[in-house]
């Protein structure tokens, strides 16, 4: 399978230069590669939320669910529990899953459910045209905060670490090789995997210049160490124009995932005829 096989006929409405294109292209390449390597793309389910990022499921020819604002992870959780064999990948924005859907993010990490969440972290509400979000820097002058946001930003990798996520990484939309590597690692990781993608919004929060100056790739860090991951994730707190910004994998450990320990589910592999019989049995019992 070639990455181009995963395109759709939907017209792309992102702004020219939007960081979402990198995420889309990286994901397309990774899914095509995984398909070649034995993870058929038919086994993958994508879930998105509301915001500019949400349109990504329109542009990938993969099973997908476009959920409501903030509720990406509850939908994905149910999909995963209904069929733990599926690979479930969520796309969510910093507005979508750090504001309205924050509780779900924390619980997904706490449960360590085997879902991958790609955070399109452009640090601004793009679709509603330019208001501050939970990761906007303190003092951010958006349309809802003309005097500057009074709140310090949230630090998503740190939050995920203390919440129980078992794979945590950060990528940048200007750097597609690393992004592909991280996406692949995250998808193949068993447990809740979280990739914070510094995604530049060309229209309302163009941070290319400052990111290009500050990002570096972590090398040789002990990704099994909670303390080291905490130290590195806190080394940049989404503020300050010149602090070095670490990219790459912060943390990866093995731990039982939610669907493995979820009580009451028997994995049954049914053929079509058996499946229909089972459904009619259930229906008869209920009617």
């Amino acid at each position, binding site marked *: 399978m070639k990455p181009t096989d995963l395109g759709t006929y939907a017209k792309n409405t992102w702004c020219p230069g939007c960081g979402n294109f990198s995420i889309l292209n990286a994901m397309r390449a990774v899914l095509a590669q995984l398909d070649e390597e034995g993870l058929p793309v038919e086994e993958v389910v994508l879930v998105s939320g509301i915001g500019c990022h949400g349109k990504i499921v329109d542009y990938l020819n993969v099973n997908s669910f476009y959920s409501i604002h903030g509720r990406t992870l509850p939908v994905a959780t149910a999909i995963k529990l209904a069929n733990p064999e599926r690979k479930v990948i969520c796309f969510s924005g910093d507005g979508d899953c750090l504001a309205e859907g924050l509780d779900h993010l924390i619980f997904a990490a706490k449960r360590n459910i085997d879902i991958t969440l790609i955070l399109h972290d452009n640090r601004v509400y793009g679709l509603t045209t330019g208001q501050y979000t939970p990761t906007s820097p303190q003092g951010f002058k958006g349309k*809802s905060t003309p005097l500057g946001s009074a709140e310090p930003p949230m630090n998503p990798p740190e939050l995920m670490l203390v919440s129980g996520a078992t794979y945590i990484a950060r990528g940048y939309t200007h750097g597609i090789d690393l992004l592909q590597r991280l996406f692949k690692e995250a998808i193949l990781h068993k447990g809740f995997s979280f990739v914070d993608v510094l995604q530049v919004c060309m229209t309302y929060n163009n941070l290319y210049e400052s990111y290009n100056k500050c990002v570096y790739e972590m090398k040789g860090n002990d990704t099994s160490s909670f303390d080291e991951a905490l130290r590195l994730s806190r080394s940049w707190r989404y503020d300050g124009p010149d602090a070095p910004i670490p990219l790459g994998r912060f943390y990866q450990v093995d731990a039982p995932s939610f669907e493995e320990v979820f009580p009451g589910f028997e994995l049954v592999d049914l053929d079509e005829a058996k499946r229909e019989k089972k459904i009619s049995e259930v229906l008869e019992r209920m009617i």
Partner: protein
Amino acid sequence: MMKGVASSASQGQSPKARGEKTTKTLGMKVVEGSYAVAHAVKCCRPDVISAYPITPQTHIVEHLSQMVANGEMDSEFLTVDSEFSALSVLVGSSACGGRCYSSTTSQGLALMYEVLYNVSGMRLPIVMNVANRALGAPLNIWNDQQDSIGARDVGWLQIYVEDVQEAVDATLQAYKIAEDPEIMTPTMVCMDGFILTHVYEPVKLLDQELASEFLPPFAPRSILDTADPKTFGAFADPSTYTEFRYLQFEAQNKALAKIERTAREFEETFGRFYGGLVDSYRADDAEIVIVTLGSVIGTIKDAIDSMRAEGKKVGLVKVRCYRPFPVAALREALKKASIIAVLEKDVSIGGEAGLLADMKAAFYNSSIHPPIIGFTAGLGGRDITINDIEKLVKKAEAAMKGIESEFEFLSLRTEIL
């Protein structure tokens, strides 16, 4: 644009003091609907504003945040993480005695649902503009009125406006109605999303001095006060819960007269009147009367004019106040109609539609018994055109000889079903 417009409203001496006729002193400005509403909110002098951005409400609160930042408003503006938080913030600030404002739409209003009941149950007179928009799924950001019609039972007053000027004027009136000690009921001013929020049209912006005269400072009788401790939102067990609801019900009944009175007082001060509870257009001798809400009224008036020219006796009754439902005013306005055709941008899936059901209920036990038929149209932003209105009138004409369908989707695209 914004600064120029904002300063025009604040002129040293009030028009009244200068002895001029108020309706002519303020010229019309071509402004965006959202700006005009934000300017009206500014003139209402709210203490606390809290909102979460959602299309097509966003511009209203952005303009307000700019006005607060410019120092034009002495208000606290709280940005929050969701609509649920936005309205919850206002529960706290309203209980402390602050005049409070929010605005939302669609999914945002749906997310507020639990808090809507808290606000009305605690009798907190918050005012909110709803920029009416369709609800998902399927995802749709365009206008219809399923969002606020769906919230008709939450205990808020609901006023639907026809154009930007009325949205401006109704917002000021809403505080006066909501904060009346006899009413103390939150109010939604519902305006069609995009059609009214994003349109630029000539508007007479409110004059701050006249607005302040019209709407005195908020003086609630019962607030959180350490010197006089009380509890808001406490338990009411089965022995008293019903009576709380009864008092809300009674307050809405009292609001009927208050809304009429406020519209008249507004007319005295500002020279504009839109009807109190209902309004009508060429309805006096009309056989076929269309009953509807919101911005579609402009189109209907045009359609009526051309049909009148052809000799068809068609008229319109506009439901300005939907909650409380103005039963007596509607019976009076429609007593001579041969048939009533209800048009609305909502559907009660599994029933018919909100306004139609209320209309039938309003006439069933009365002595007036014209046939009442209903149409849903304009869902998810589809335009309602003059052709649609003419089609509706033809169907109403046919129904005068016998109703074939009590309720239908107007201009349904059967070819894609």
